[in-house]
């Protein structure tokens, strides 16, 4: 089933690769992935929708939390959350259906972002299923091109973020907790 994972991670080269690698090495298909920096430019927020066997969902979250660059991984699949996606549709249709297309777009809360004699470019945001319907409707009026952003999600309850404090070292030397036991 589809799992929605929200990740807070360090905005560093390779961080994305670690997350996607974690999923691909287990043979999971990523349905969508969005990532952008947060208010703190050193951090990124990532939303992943991935097809994971239900029994493995918790393990995926634990493995993601193990990644050094990941500050927090949360499963939003069954927790209260808002999921939104943006779609951009370019539609070419005959002159006589222009008004109808506009009305249809309005029903979905769409906004025309470009208009030409050939047709429109329309943006719509909404939950992914609603966007599916919108795309189906547009297809019935003409020739379309579609780009979707992938899902973005935010939890409705805030989850406490526990960050690890810096570890002091005496110039590197004490940074190594060596097990005391050597025979």
């Amino acid at each position, binding site marked *: 089933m589809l799992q929605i994972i929200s990740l807070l991670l360090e905005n560093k080269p390779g961080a994305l690769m670690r997350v996607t690698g974690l999923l691909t090495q287990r043979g999971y298909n990523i349905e969508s992935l969005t990532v952008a920096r947060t208010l703190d430019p050193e951090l990124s927020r990532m939303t992943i929708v991935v097809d994971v066997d239900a029994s493995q969902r918790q393990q995926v979250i634990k493995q993601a939390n193990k990644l050094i660059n990941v*500050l927090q991984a949360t499963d939003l699949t069954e927790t209260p959350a808002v999921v939104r996606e943006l779609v951009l549709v370019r539609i070419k249709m005959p002159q006589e259906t222009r008004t109808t297309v506009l009305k249809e777009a309005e029903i979905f809360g769409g906004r025309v972002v470009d208009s030409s004699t050939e047709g429109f470019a329309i943006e719509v945001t909404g939950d992914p299923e609603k966007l599916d319907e919108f795309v189906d409707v547009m297809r019935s009026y003409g020739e379309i091109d579609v780009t979707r952003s992938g899902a973005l999600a935010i939890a409705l309850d805030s989850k406490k973020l526990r960050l690890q404090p810096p570890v002091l070292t005496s110039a590197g030397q004490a940074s190594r907790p060596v097990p005391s*036991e050597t*025979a």
Partner: protein
Amino acid sequence: MSTLMSGARMLLECLAREGVDCIFGYPGGVTLPFYDVLYDHHIRHVLVRHEENAAFAAQGYARVTGKVGVCCATSGPGATNLTTGLVDALLDSIPIVAITGQVPTKLIGSDAFQEADTFGITRSCTKHNFLVKRLEDLGAAVHEAFYIAASGRPGPVLVDITKDVLQGQGHYQPVTSIHLPGYKVFTEGHTGQIRRAAQLIQESERPLVYSGGGIIAAGASAELREFVERNDLPTVNTLMGLGGLPSEHPNFISMPGMHGSYAANMAFSNCDLIVALGVRFDDRVTGRLAAFAPHAKVIHVDIDPAEIGKIRNPDVPIVGDVKRVLAKLNKLTSEEKPAPNEKLTAARRAWWHQIRQWKLEHPLQVSTSDTEIKPQHLMSEIDRLSGGRAIVTSDVGQHQMWAAQLIRFGEPRLWVNSGGLGSMGFGLPAAIGAQFARPDKLVFSLVGDGGFQMSIPELGTVASNGLPIKIIIMNNGYLGMVRQWQTLFYNNRLSAVELDNFPDAEKLAAAYGFKGKTIDKPWELASALEEAVREPGPYLLNVKVTPFENVYPMVPAGGAINEMVLGPPQPAAVPAK
């Protein structure tokens, strides 16, 4: 205070501050600046004959000391050759740091000479990795690498450094703090859960301690010993946990699993409580999961939260350092003595009686023959000479299993083997690392004729450094474990498993300048091994053993752990499971 120095010097400075005294490596084009500063530095560099063996040697060093092992390789093929050793360390949770050179930053992505995407390739081979493209990032990356490798669940960390960083000049600021906000290390263990665990242990009629590599990694064998003695608990040590509780300890049963003892596996199948300490319920231990320890509640202690519930859902999960958790458990059980309970005492006594009974019914057999050397005979002779005190590194296969069954280990960090990945060619380079780390110890490198032929080049390293390693080849002329499976499960169609043309061991050793010998008579065995041990330098002893011996007991793959094949099919019945 900061000093102007090259990146290569800075790297060396960082390594020295981390207490590194020995690096196993192989130089190349982009690591030249590093090898130049290494030339007159006190850190010892050991030139191996293949990068894979540098990683194995670093592991050998780490496994016998608990300190971080260090290996080094150049870009491209040097780095890709390290990968097997890195994955091996990852699966066995061994702390090593690998330093690799990378082509100059400007050339990255241009298919430059000896360029490989080391950072990408080793993502899944390591606990964490770094690509250093700016000199100012170097110090932090190296110190963070050591910290990550050694803390929490230990593992391999790779630092890939571009040539321009090694060549650049900069000011070195000693790193005084490591800031990894997302790196969570759980050490303490939940007090409430520990209390619940203590209660379950006290109430259990048929408890079993399942102790693994985590006990060794945490340095918790003293706490383990106190724990099993205080509660008089029967204990099994996994392949990775051998030596965690001394083999001679009265509470020790033996190793469980696919080639574990009858008693250990029966104990799993009949216990009512498993106290799992630093283990991961590996498939080679559990057999068919649905049939594994069906009556048991589980207390699972591990420092890695992802291990809890990964394979088996525990009744009491405890995320923490097993050393600290056991110390707390010991404190709890010493403070709170349960009221005497006759029924429970009787049940415990019956449980112990049953376990001893299983041990007597089907002990691990040391079979001998008058005409041929049996592999088990070889192991028991090594065991006699070691007396539980020598370091034994093993390769992978039949000899590894017989060694694990029959050689005793009196303390942790003596038994060195590739458990999780099962990398052939591990035994000899691991012994090299172990002998460098413990020059005071007798080191047996116990290898099969297959694995040995993967690491023959390292005889050069052994010879160059005069390492007094006793290389014992259990030579059955076959890839024995694969042959065993072909015999048992593929109608004895022996496909690509016969190793003929094994070199003359005496001549081979002589070519490298040390002593060697081949024996095949059982009456020669004891004296030949003694001679090898007496020899002040390296020794290569090729022991030709009977070729078609199978390792028993055996739980066929996918079988339940209590459905063991205890001996050769009689007469020709092959287990159907």
